[in-house]
């Protein structure tokens, strides 16, 4: 993928927009500021594409650190829509080995979220009832009118499929 042409840049945008917004939100705690920062980064990249040269495989880190720097800059400037003083001072002081802003974990969550969407309808339903709603297999079986064993099988199938899907989706970001 060559991100320096319009089509390639659109692909890059689609691949990274959501995960970068989640990343910015983790810092800023405000959706609108998060989206503003991410769009600003994309505008900056596009406007300076002639002068930006990124080593093979470094694009990902480049995007994440641009978002991080812009978000921290916004906090320092004080021109932020909401204030969460304690949270900001915590996050500005966070050590480099703190995983809360680890880009690979964010990509993992993004990949997982996308992969869940690709599950078969029954597997997806069971998977979401189990993980998002925290139902037991008995409750799921009751709700869907299937027996418990079937519910468990659906869950096992979902998890098995997810391993593959997540791995595939992560490849999107390997460039």
């Amino acid at each position, binding site marked *: 993928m060559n991100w320096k042409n319009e089509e390639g840049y659109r692909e890059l945008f*689609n691949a990274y927009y*959501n995960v970068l917004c989640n990343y910015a939100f983790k810092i800023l705690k405000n959706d609108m500021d998060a989206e503003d920062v991410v769009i600003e980064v994309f505008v900056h990249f596009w406007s300076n594409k002639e002068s930006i040269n990124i080593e093979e495989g470094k694009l990902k880190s480049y995007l994440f650190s641009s978002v991080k720097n812009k978000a921290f800059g916004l906090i320092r400037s004080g021109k932020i829509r909401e204030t969460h003083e304690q949270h900001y001072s915590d996050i500005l002081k966070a050590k480099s*080995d703190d995983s809360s802003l680890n880009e*690979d974990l964010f990509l*993992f969550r993004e990949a*997982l979220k996308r992969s869940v969407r690709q599950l078969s309808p029954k597997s997806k339903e069971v998977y979401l009832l189990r993980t998002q709603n925290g139902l037991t297999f008995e409750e799921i079986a009751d709700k869907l009118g299937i027996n418990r064993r079937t519910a468990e099988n659906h869950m096992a199938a*979902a998890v098995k499929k997810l391993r593959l899907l997540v791995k595939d989706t992560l490849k999107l970001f390997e460039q």
Partner: protein
Amino acid sequence: MDIQEVILRILNKKEAVVEYQQLKDWKEETAENLKIYQEINKIVEEGSNIKDYKDYNVESGYKRFKEQITPKSKSWMMYAAALLLILAGGYFMLNKNTTTESAVPQEYLAETKVSEFALNDGSSVTLNVGSELRELSDFSKIRNVELKGEAFFDITPDKEKPFRIHLEEGTFVEVLGTSFNIINDGTNMQVVVESGHVELHADGKVISLTKGYAAERVKGSIVKYRKQKDNYLSWKNNTLVYKNTPIATVLTDIGAHFNTELNLSQVILKSDCNLSSTFETKSIDQILSELSKLVQLSYIKKDDGSYSIKDIKCE
């Protein structure tokens, strides 16, 4: 081993013995590693819970991106943003990189809440609710603005281009770079200097004000005086600070800040209770409830929104 590698190893369930051992070592290295391992591993054991992970609208994001990179629509975007600002109030950041292109004088209005605005010379203005600031020129020579209401200014120094704030007819404040508070609401006119040096031009005279000084129109003429550090910036900072202040003064001040009527009983007016405290100005109810704990203030809220302050006990 980096996290990416860990994720892949956990996803590949059939790890070779060596890989499994490496993974085990890695997760036992630090508490943070263990946390990461567990989060990733949830997908294997019970399915990961990623409720906090949100879905943003990529399409509308891309649309906004397109609008911002299309040169033709740039000035339109800025205009729309300014218009939105006038309608809605709130924060607005001017992109400093575009200042040379955009020389259209702007208007700023804080309609419903205290709002801070960045002017394109890097200065910032915080407008109190209902206040309005209008740029009178494009800032290429003198930075001329007009203020109605109350505002706090933090002006970027520029010796070549003095900053002038026009108040009532024939009166203006000129600064080179400093911060100060101005009230000009048709009834009151007051300038308080927080830092640096400003000049008030009024009635054909020039009154020089430095840090800690204020000038105000009192019964037709301008009076300069030393400003006691009180809560004149409470509207901006959202804090009220008292140092050994009589309780009746504190209550009157709080009422004024929230524009709320507080009826003080004789007990309160005669009380020799002094207070040293800092309040965050979230709501009058919250401050009064804090006060009721601090000095056993008793009060009732009436249907018309006013308060009747009855009694106090302080040690």
